[in-house]
């Protein structure tokens, strides 16, 4: 199918019309706080349903998968069009829960490594909002070492039998599919014994357990896989070659909301409480006239602008090839550092309100809990320590860290004393 490419201004007009007709406006103040436990399960399920609905509307309006090939239900347009859509979405609702991880990294991985049949089967379904995907990647024992997966897949004729546990999936309880990294060979070094599978979350043997975070959020899940059987046709990439997929998977994950496959209203920040709320905190704490509070507000605003500018520079550099793909770790590292700092600025502005508050305290509410959750941005999606390794070794070319698991069969790799 080779259509004449739509003119950007026509596209913008079309996007604008769609947004006006179909989408509610939202206020920025909705986006404060860190993983706050603001919705009941019923509300969350309703929000998921609304996300699916919007995604379907986008799909029907030819505004889904802007940079996804037309062959798989996308629009086959350039990232510039995605930016236009993002700009037009500013201030409006959007199908937030589908962006990450469904479109990036899952759809990206599928596009890159899936068979034609797999792509046809899943990508249009994703773009229609019918399939929400999760990453079955991290494991309780694993920490930063995702390639050290202990979840095991054993071949049984045309099927694989999976056993193990995955953790830190966001909302697996209302999702459909998992992209799953599993060990298929224990007798080779760790990177050479992995394979990647697609896994329907409702399959027999998958038990989803919701994790309670310290602030009461139950967004994350842990899955226990017990003799889960899946067909070999749901394997992505070659057997034991899962790390080839995994490396790109990791890259797409680091790209996160900077991926051209994700839709995100321009100006949305995802690095914890934004600066507007810092001003509100200072005001509601009665500190807005204090020079030091003003300094902290200025610092938060500096870091927020710095994050945005850095993100744009890295995206441009990687897109133009003047920077390596690995440079995305620079953005990840900086975003973590600044989110942590912002958490401290918030509680500093809150004063005694950081310890206790009433529901009438406006912006002071739950600032203390946000502070307790401060490190989440330095941990989730690969720790800042891993990012610092990538930056120093892959971007700056400093010597690689010594690992004890490189040239040894995975079953012989040293493990925690308490893990045995």
């Amino acid at each position, binding site marked *: 199918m080779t259509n004449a490419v739509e003119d950007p201004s026509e596209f913008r007009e079309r996007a604008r019309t769609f947004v006006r007709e179909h989408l509610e406006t939202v206020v920025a103040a909705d986006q404060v706080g860190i993983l706050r436990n603001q919705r009941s399960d019923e509300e969350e399920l309703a929000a998921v349903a609304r996300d699916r609905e919007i995604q379907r509307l986008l799909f029907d309006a030819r505004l889904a998968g802007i940079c996804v090939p037309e062959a798989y239900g996308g629009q086959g347009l350039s990232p510039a069009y995605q930016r236009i859509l993002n700009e037009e979405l500013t201030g409006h609702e959007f199908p937030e829960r589908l962006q990450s991880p469904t479109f990036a990294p899952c759809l990206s991985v599928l596009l890159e490594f899936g068979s034609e049949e797999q792509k046809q089967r899943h990508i249009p379904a994703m773009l229609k909002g019918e399939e929400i995907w999760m990453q079955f990647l991290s494991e309780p024992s694993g920490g930063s070492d995702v390639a050290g997966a202990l979840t095991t897949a054993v071949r049984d004729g045309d099927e694989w039998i999976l056993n193990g546990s995955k953790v830190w999936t966001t909302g697996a309880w209302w999702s459909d599919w998992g992209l799953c990294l599993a060990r298929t060979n224990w007798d080779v070094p760790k990177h050479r014994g992995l394979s990647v599978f697609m896994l329907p979350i409702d399959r027999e043997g998958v038990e989803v357990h919701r994790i*309670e975070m310290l602030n009461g959020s139950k967004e994350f899940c842990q899955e226990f896989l017990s003799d889960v059987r899946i067909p070999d046709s749901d394997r992505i990439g070659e057997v034991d070659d899962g790390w080839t997929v995994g490396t790109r998977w990791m890259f797409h994950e680091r790209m996160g909301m900077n991926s051209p496959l994700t839709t995100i209203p321009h100006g949305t920040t995802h690095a914890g409480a934004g600066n507007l709320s810092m001003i509100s905190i200072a005001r509601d704490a009665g500190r807005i006239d204090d020079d030091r509070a003003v300094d902290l507000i200025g610092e938060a605003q500096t870091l927020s602008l710095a994050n945005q500018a850095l993100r744009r520079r890295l995206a441009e550099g990687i897109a133009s090839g003047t920077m390596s793909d690995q440079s995305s770790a620079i953005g990840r590292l900086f975003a973590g550092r600044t989110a942590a700092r912002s958490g401290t600025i918030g509680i500093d502005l809150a004063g*005694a309100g950081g310890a206790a508050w009433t529901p009438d305290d406006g912006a002071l509410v739950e600032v203390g809990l946000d502070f307790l959750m401060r490190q989440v941005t330095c941990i989730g999606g690969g720790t800042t320590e891993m990012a610092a390794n990538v930056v120093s070794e892959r971007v700056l070319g400093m010597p690689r860290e010594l690992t004890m698991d490189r040239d040894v069969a995975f079953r012989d*790799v040293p493990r925690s004393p308490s893990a045995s």
Partner: protein
Amino acid sequence: MLLQLDADLEMFRDTTERFLGEFASVEEIRRLRDHDAGFDPDYWRRGAELGWVSLLVDEAHGGGSVSGNRLVDLSVLAHEFGRRAAPGPLITTNIVASALSAHDADPELLAQLLCGESVATWAHAEGATPGAFDDLTLDITLDGQSLVLNGQKRPVESARVASHFLVTGLAVGGPSQVLVPVDCPGVSVTPMEGVDLTRRFSVVTFDDVSVPVSSAVGELGGARAAIDRQLEYALIMANAEAVGAMQTGFDMTLEWALDRYSFGRPLASYQAIKHRFADMATWLETAHALSDEATAAAGAGSPDADELLSAAKAFIGDYGAELLQECVQFHGGIGLTFEHDLHLSLRRHTVDRALFGTPADHRRRLAEISIEREAAS
């Protein structure tokens, strides 16, 4: 905490530690999150029997020091509370008990506090604004043989289970303290949410609350020194508690780093992590050092006690927070879950950091003392 304790004090510490180990386990603390008061009356009564409320009370009133230095005793006790994130109105009840004892006021209530039958709380802070930890605006008007209170106090600990508030405010032109029964007409208590699982705070509003003149604790208008002294106690306890929380978080995380393997090596073998532990160790030792020096200075009535208490509050608040957040970081996602124990330390530290003046408030106080002294010299 001090590097060495004398035998009596060590026994007191050890008894408290073992008691808390049994009755303030992490499971118990998690359970108490849904408890109205945040602690069981029986737990508190038994703790009081161990001497938890007696340290600042004169022997004549049934109190007494363990080691001869009551402030050192107090900081050792608070440190154990911090290590366990233990439940109970330790800081606030001790302050009220000290005030009653110092002013020979309400011996009946004091006796009840001492044996843990009652709880009383200090209604002092007036909000989140800078300086609010020692500025007063609550109005106390002398009206014949009555005192009439108008104003608001927040956060007030354990306000919903206390029998009395010791309220600070301004009367006859100066700082004053008045003991107010919680059931006085005009008193209203609004519970707050907060970061600690067991420590409960409220907003307490006094709307034309009338009590007899005899409810004044100490001289009307002349309570500045007493209030400052009580604030000293609060700072000593908050600092020692916060250091205890730091110690527990640090110990737990060092153990984790030594045990946890990543890429076939212990986490603790990675130099980037080792160096951050080294910094954490310096913060932890410094926190102990400042807390103990400030306690000693206050105990000795040294002129630099205020400076040291503020330096300790500022340092422990800021560096302790960084230390505990580093502990979270090294644990990874599990350190942010409710089922892990680490957040109990982080919560307790966060409360102690925010109460009785934030780090910034105390840097300001410290700077003002220094500037004044420099100008005087």
